[in-house]
């Protein structure tokens, strides 16, 4: 049984009209750009299920794009998302798919950064403005945005994890949840580490200096 708090019951403060199709979509876009961090030159949103059928009526497209440009679900500039994207020179498109997905409100975000890297992030909107990112570049994840979260890309080798947790504990950062994913044994692994505390830039620098660490990114908590 889920425990609700005041930010769920008297909130979120949001741009209408739908918490799942507008606010939740915005949060998926917002989280995706927060994961990618680099400036993006091109983005494609593939919509599935109910998203594909009703996106126009609920402004799901506007919300996804706005969120992807860093606007939060309560930002009144959301309605101008198309205009803002054009001004920024961001190329965007929306595609609908009738492919079956596990969740009715699913979107796949395919983005090309200005360094020509391609990212593929899949998110689902689960109601009440909440969302889950369920895949990053083909690796299955379960990321909710409820906590300050570290995303690490590191070499899949022994001792990596203990180095990461040692660094965090030295800074008195408590780990709420931690998951590890890997593409293949001995190659690249992705860590998703959700924490209770705020993470200062110095921590990121220290993590990045760990031998075998390829990439560290902080996704700040986006709820309430």
């Amino acid at each position, binding site marked *: 049984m889920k425990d*609700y708090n005041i930010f769920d019951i*008297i*909130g979120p403060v949001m*741009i209408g009209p739908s918490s799942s199709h507008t606010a939740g979509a915005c949060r998926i876009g917002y989280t995706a750009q927060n994961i990618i961090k680099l400036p993006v030159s091109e983005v494609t949103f593939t919509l599935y299920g109910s998203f594909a059928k009703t996106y126009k009526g*609920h402004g799901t497209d506007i919300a996804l794009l706005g969120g992807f440009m860093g606007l939060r679900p309560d930002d009144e500039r959301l309605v101008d998302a198309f205009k803002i994207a054009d001004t920024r020179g961001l190329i965007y498109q929306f595609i609908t798919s009738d492919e079956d997905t596990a969740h009715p409100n699913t979107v796949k975000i395919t983005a090309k950064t200005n360094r020509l890297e391609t990212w593929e992030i899949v998110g689902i909107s689960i109601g009440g403005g909440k969302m889950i990112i369920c895949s990053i570049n083909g690796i299955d994840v379960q990321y909710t945005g409820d906590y300050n979260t570290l995303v690490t890309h590191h070499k899949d080798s022994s001792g990596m994890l203990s180095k990461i947790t040692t660094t965090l504990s030295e800074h008195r950062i408590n780990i709420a949840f931690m998951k590890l994913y890997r593409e293949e044994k001995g190659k690249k692994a992705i860590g998703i580490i959700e924490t209770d505390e705020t993470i200062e830039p110095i921590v990121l620098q220290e993590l990045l200096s760990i031998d075998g660490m390829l990439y560290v990114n902080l996704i700040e908590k986006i709820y*309430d």
Partner: protein
Amino acid sequence: MRFTSAVDILEYCKEHQLPLHELSLASEIEKTGRSYGYIRDYLKNVLKVMQNAVQAGINDEENLIKGKIIGNDSVLLKKRLDHSRTVCGETITKAVAYALSTMEVNASMGKVVASPTAGSCGVLPAVLMTTKERFDLSEEKLLEGLLAANLVGTIVARNATIAGAEGGCQAEVGTASAMASGAVVHMMGGTPEQVFNAAAMCFKNLLGLVCDPIAGLVESPCAKRNGMGAANALLCAEMSLAGIKSVIPFDEVVEAMYRIGKALPPSLRETSLGGLATTKTGIQINTELFGQK
């Protein structure tokens, strides 16, 4: 302090001689780890957003604030309130106009507070702002009302559902109406028992209400149902303050609401496959907006 039922809350209030809003605040501080100041600031912003939304629609003479189906209804009602002898009197008529206004803002991609959901975002602001104006209530009082409403909503979300897809409109507008009614009773100095009696009566009046949005949009019949939810909240608050009790206690009403929600066929739970959505006109509107299915 995590309360699981109204009975739980009422016992705690009695034992510790705490007003509902203080109990609500203390519980939220514990649950969220947020400070007293943070939660108060958050709720102050909530009130600001609500205040803007109840005014934006009714003052929208040029009809710019509208959705794909609705718009301008709040202006019509406000005009009637200003220029005619209304059937319902000022309080009810104004509350309904405010609810319509907020729903029009929501439909136009304006800013609202999902309380508890976007589809029911018109009820609580309408009732709070109408009562504020009628009794010249302070911001402090309104914050107390929001905190009391939060307790009502939290119990429903925990023990039943606040999602139309799960429980129909009774879960959305029903909950909003119960929350708003509880808030009014609390702000008017009613007892915690009276708060939950009002909330229980609100639900009882709306049990069975289905979710059948035309063209899948959060517009029609949602907006007017929000108006009805606001009027219902005020009436039940009045009854409770008069000493009228709900025959069935709040927790049992919530349980009934949940059972009824689950018994509703999926076609009447936010799928637009039944009810008003599949009337001749409903289908026609859908086709005009989105083409043939």
